[in-house]
């Protein structure tokens, strides 16, 4: 490379390499970090999962203590149980319909400001958690590190609940309450869209 040429090519080569680097992501991520990234991104890449998990946090915050922490505690536990069923190959009918229904029902609970007894809310959230977990369990990437996949998967779920709780805490003020209930309506509408796709 001549000195004159390198003056232009050297600064250009770096952005070129940066632009080319995403091609390397084409292969399956492996190892500890790969497993974590796969697990962390898996729930986030599914909008049907995202809206339902945010709805859990939103409804929990809307119901107040102890639902604010109980629902996000119940959901990952039951979801892991569903995930275990999926990993072990135990069939579960209507998984996609169950996931869409979770967004519809949980969104409606927030929209209509439904305040059932705590155990009813926990059972409802737990029942939907099985569908979400099963879907994730059956879609585990082959080369992922199972432990770090599980850690990433559970952390991402928890963070989405947290996002829902943070938004749901706005319900303390009248305007915030309207915003939260509107968000519930949007989640429910998204659930209807997912249901149409699943049927």
């Amino acid at each position, binding site marked *: 490379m001549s000195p004159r040429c390198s003056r232009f090519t050297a600064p250009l080569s770096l952005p070129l390499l940066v632009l080319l680097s995403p091609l390397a992501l084409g292969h399956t991520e492996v190892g*500890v970090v790969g497993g974590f990234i796969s697990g962390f991104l898996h729930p986030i890449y599914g909008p049907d999962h995202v809206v339902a998990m945010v709805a859990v946090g939103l409804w929990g915050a809307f119901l107040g*203590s102890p639902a*604010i*922490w109980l629902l*996000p*505690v*119940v959901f*990952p*536990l039951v*979801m*892991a*149980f569903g*995930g*275990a*069923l999926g*990993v*072990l*190959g135990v069939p579960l009918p209507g998984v996609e319909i169950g996931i869409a229904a979770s967004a519809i029902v949980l969104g409606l609970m927030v929209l209509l400001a439904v305040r059932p007894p705590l155990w009813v809310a926990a059972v409802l959230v737990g029942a939907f958690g099985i569908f979400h977990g099963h879907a994730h*369990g059956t879609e*585990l990437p082959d080369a992922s590190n*199972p*432990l*770090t*996949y*599980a*850690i990433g*998967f*559970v*952390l991402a779920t*928890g963070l989405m609940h947290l996002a829902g709780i943070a938004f749901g805490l706005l319900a303390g003020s009248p305007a915030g309450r309207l915003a939260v209930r509107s968000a519930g309506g949007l989640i429910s509408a998204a659930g209807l869209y997912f249901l149409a796709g699943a049927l």
Partner: protein
Amino acid sequence: MNPLVRLLMALVLTAAPLLAQAHSPYPGVRGFYVGALHPLTTPSHVLLILAISILLGLRLTEGRMRCLATVFAATALGLVLAFVLASYLPSSLFILLLTTLVGGLIIGPTSLPGWSLVVLSGACGFLLALESIPDPGPFLDVLITVTGSLVGIHYLIMYGSRAVRHGLERWDSGPLQIGIKVVGSWIAAIGLLMLAFTLAGSTGIA
């Protein structure tokens, strides 16, 4: 002292020993460090140590010494028996099972009988020890590494549980209690999923 300065000093002191790990201060001692740090190199061990530390810190207001003594004795017993039992017992499965159970107990009943915590502590120490023996080698090297494992497991659980207890005594607030319950549910969920992965792998489903 300014809290920020204190935090910076702690970070500097934490970072500094890494430089000293470039070589062992005394010949033959390296195995001790390898053994002591071994529980931190295996994610499932870290998860179990975290779970039992939180449970002991959360539930034990008295009798912690009895549990810690049991951890020490059970770990020592496990390290001795590991040379015979390690290849026969599916200890990794038991570790995940115990992690799920302990995670569930963190979010479960607010009080547990003292003897159940002693049994759980002993089971943790024993199972972790079964997976902490070094490869065969000269007796003295193996002994040094095994001693490191014993000290490492015991100290991690001792300091971990004490840190949780200290946090609860100092900041006995709702958010901390809730945070601990959320972490407990995450630990149980991760343990359950890992258990499924391990079972699926061993049975050829996955």
